[in-house]
């Protein structure tokens, strides 16, 4: 199998490393506007990695988009037109909407566009799907994110705190002001409790189509007072090259027989590491034809959650359940 990685920042470099370590991978082509970074990553990946000046989707089986989200659509369109699969780690509402719009063409060409295949969204969608498997019907899904991956993810986090959030409530979309709906969410240790707020997050856009009949889907983002105060300003200092530890909390409420119950799953990891691993596993599954369907969708609709989580666990990305409810 041949893969093209567009963007080898904190997430893309991890995804490339996972892919190049797979014995079935013939080549990993690396596209990155920063030539010094591109050369450094290619030399660290070994002889199966190759630098390219211009992304050419027709030369590979799967295109992995790990560049800033605004650049995803153009390459994804070319890939779908060439009949190639796409895996995107997009985490902005606009990019996710644009990629989901490729659904009809992707279905027609029999290719997969995996949208939001990172940590959050990505692993969060798989955790929601895994928890939903314990219910006869799912009523509500509530996702909370903590932490960021590389600089592009930190900028997206900053922008999300001033963007309008979208909640799915009573089978209709509701626009929510950013920074509203404060909720104290407890993530697995060592992250612990953190105040989370509504923000421009794409999780609901990916989860609602995967769970027909769900009545409420919300997403919140952990933020400090400084994050909220400065959300309307440009970033006051350069983001970290690599984010600190981050977490996910996914709460699913539903019916089991005659009773209602709640399952809370979570994960804690460096977001860039977990996102890179999730993107690489998704790319391998897509290339091997292991997805449940074709077209553009989130991971909740594309992958069987149990074997996907087992593969992530073997790669070191583990999930946890909260007991004591």
């Amino acid at each position: 199998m041949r893969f093209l990685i567009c963007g080898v920042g904190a997430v893309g470099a991890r995804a490339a490393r996972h892919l190049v370590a797979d014995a079935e991978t013939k080549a990993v082509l690396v596209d990155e506007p920063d030539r010094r970074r591109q050369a450094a990553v290619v030399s660290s990946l070994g002889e199966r990695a190759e630098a390219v000046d211009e992304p050419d989707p027709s030369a590979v089986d799967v295109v992995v988009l790990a560049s800033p989200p605004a650049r995803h659509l153009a390459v994804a369109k070319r890939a779908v037109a060439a009949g190639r699969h796409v895996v995107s780690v997009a985490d902005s509402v606009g990019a996710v909407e644009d990629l989901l719009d490729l659904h009809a063409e992707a279905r027609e060409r029999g290719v997969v566009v995996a949208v939001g295949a990172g940590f959050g969204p990505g692993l969060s969608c798989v955790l929601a799907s895994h928890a939903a498997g314990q219910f006869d019907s799912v009523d509500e899904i509530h996702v909370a994110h903590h932490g960021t991956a590389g600089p592009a993810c930190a900028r997206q986090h900053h922008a999300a705190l001033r963007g309008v959030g979208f909640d799915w409530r009573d089978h209709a979309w509701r626009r929510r002001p950013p920074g509203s709906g404060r909720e104290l969410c407890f993530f697995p240790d060592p992250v612990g409790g953190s105040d989370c707020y509504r923000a421009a997050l794409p999780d609901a856009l990916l989860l609602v189509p995967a769970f027909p009949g769900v009545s409420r889907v919300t997403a919140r983002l952990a933020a400090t007072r400084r994050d909220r105060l400065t959300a309307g300003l440009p970033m006051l200092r350069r983001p970290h090259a690599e984010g600190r530890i981050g977490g996910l909390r996914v709460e699913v409420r539903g019916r089991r027989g005659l009773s209602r119950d709640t399952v809370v799953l979570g994960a804690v990891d460096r977001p860039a590491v977990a996102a890179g691993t999730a993107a690489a596993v998704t790319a391998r599954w897509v290339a091997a034809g292991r997805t449940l369907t074709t077209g553009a969708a989130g991971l909740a609709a594309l992958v069987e959650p149990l074997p996907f989580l087992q593969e992530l666990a073997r790669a070191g990305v583990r999930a946890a359940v909260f007991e004591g409810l």
Partner: protein
Amino acid sequence: MALLRRALAAVAIAGIIAAVLRLRGSGGTPPQSGGRRELSGPGLR
């Protein structure tokens, strides 16, 4: 003197109300077990 009696009566009534709420309230004891557990087993439950 009347003021003192009223104050004592108020304290006594407050104490009785607090005792009733403490003994008959539905708060109960917070969970003494539970927490996060890594998903495990063949079903990752």
